[in-house]
């Protein structure tokens, strides 16, 4: 039995839209073990991204606690959360979010600027990460010179370069064709299986979800196991 890495306890999140109170998440409780690969599905607007943001310390719950590795991150200051994210979380977005003015290698190296590594050490880490995603030969290319799948792989290299234990993916294959999506999913699977990354992945695509160990379903702010859960 692996140890518990992430725990949500009675987490609620409301947004204020003018006078109206939008209840996005209501009393969510959830535990994720180290090395797990969790798929998160649900209709559009059901709060999947919001939940992912809470897990990653990008946002704070209205009530309830988010505990990661035994640490309650719900009460951390904005500055402390930023530091915490840098060493614990790798984000992977639907539209890659690479910086267009930087080469692939420099994009991948960005998180390392937050560490005390020397320039040569940083270079080594970047090379390793790019090799892992199979793009060592594209290090000097700019994002506009890469295909969508390649861009997403660069983004994955950026997410893993500082070796965080947790990867949070928000529809990582949402903008890719089927074959490319499969490549990306195999890559994530490898990161989970061979490198022990704990992955939480939002997706609409059942094929992508089939790579996860278990799939959770979010609907109307509440969590449930998906009927079509795949083991």
């Amino acid at each position, binding site marked *: 039995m692996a140890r518990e890495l992430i725990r949500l306890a009675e987490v609620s999140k409301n947004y204020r839209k003018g006078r109206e109170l939008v209840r996005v998440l209501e009393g969510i409780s959830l535990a994720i073990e180290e090395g797990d690969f969790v798929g998160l599905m649900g209709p559009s607007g059901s709060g999947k991204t919001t939940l992912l943001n809470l897990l990653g310390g990008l946002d704070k719950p209205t009530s309830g606690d988010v505990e990661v590795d035994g640490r309650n991150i719900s009460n951390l200051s904005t500055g402390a959360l*930023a530091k915490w994210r*840098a060493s614990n979380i790798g984000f992977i977005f639907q539209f890659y979010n690479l910086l267009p003015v930087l080469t692939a290698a420099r994009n991948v190296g960005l998180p390392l*600027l937050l560490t005390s590594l020397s320039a040569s050490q940083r270079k080594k880490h970047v090379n390793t990460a790019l090799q892992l995603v199979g793009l060592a030969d594209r290090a000097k290319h700019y994002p506009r010179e890469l295909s969508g799948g390649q861009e997403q792989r660069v983004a994955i290299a950026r997410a893993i370069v500082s070796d965080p234990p947790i990867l949070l993916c928000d529809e990582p294959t949402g903008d890719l064709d089927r074959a490319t999506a499969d490549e990306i999913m195999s890559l994530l699977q490898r990161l989970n299986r061979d490198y022990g990354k704990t992955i939480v992945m939002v997706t609409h695509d059942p094929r992508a979800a089939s790579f996860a160990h278990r799939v959770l379903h979010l609907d109307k702010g509440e969590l449930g196991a998906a009927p079509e859960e795949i083991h």
Partner: protein
Amino acid sequence: MFGWLTQTAALAALNLRSLPRRPGTAAVAMSGIAALTGVFAGVLSMASGFEKTMDGTGRADVALVLRSGSTAELNSRFTGEQADVIRYAPGIARDAEGEPEVSAELFWIVNAVGKSSGTEANVALRGIQPTGYSLRKDYRLAEGREFTPGRFELVVGRGARSQFMGLEPGQTIRFGKTEWLVTGMFETGGSVFESELWCDVNVLQSAYQLGNGFQVVRARVDGADGRLQLEEALGDDQRLSVDVWSEKQFYSDQAEDTASLINNIGLPISILMGIGAVFAALNAMYASIAARARELATLRAVGFGSFPTALATLLESVVLAFLGGVLGCAIAWFALNGFQASTLASSFSQVVFNFAVTPDLLGRGIVAALIVGLVGGIFPAVRAATAQVTSALREL
């Protein structure tokens, strides 16, 4: 410490790299700041050039006697008898023949047509006595000959000649009812006198039916307390009511008046342009962070802090302003340094002077630009730092 410095440096480098992606707003901000810097440095260099010309005028050992209460030669007046009383007063130096070194003069305003403007302007036509030449510091006849006493002839200063039409040696020029022959050109080391035309004071008296009147008496004083001696003697004399000035003091007082006038007009213009430049910088920086909202949010998600984000935005604004400032200084330097202009001085005649764009003034221009960059960057910096990361990531 180490952390946020490197973060700021990395973010600032990113900001500057993306500048060329928004050439429009950046160019508007830069040219606004360049214009401000140029005008600011221009106004300052105009004032300083004018002051330099005026300060270079006048000798400490020459006394200027004006009618009591007159602050300009133009509104002073003496009779010939009064001028003679002054001439033989104590405290005045004597030449080798034992004659007092005095020039009783008239300061008359005539109209000449400006070369660049094509419009008429006031030019000083000064009647002098033979000693008048040697009373001017660094006097030198540069071309032609001096006027012949008793004739309608004049010599022109270098500045007057270059600014006004019809003043070439050998030409004749009509002022009022009389034709004057220009016999030569003189220099006085760049001082105000170079803006004047000089003729025989007796000829000027008859040309304008001024009888035996004068407006000012210049005298070289004898020794350190010569001027005081002269002042006391003239003050005691019942036939006179005069003020005795040090010639040097007289011109530097005038310089301050006009230079502060230039500054009083120029500084409000600079301030208005400064406000405009702040808004241009503000606009450029808001555009910059709006265009890169997702990038900035991504960097924040990765773990970059909000303080370095703000600082880097401020730095981008300051760099933008610095570039604009350098551009403005370059324009001021190449367009204005040594540029000759003339302005109506408190003597009511045109004084010709050169703009003096000095490193010190350029430095002040750059400082003005940097202030604009800082002020214009503060609000965008705060916005960049406080923007909701989650909302920015949501937007496409």
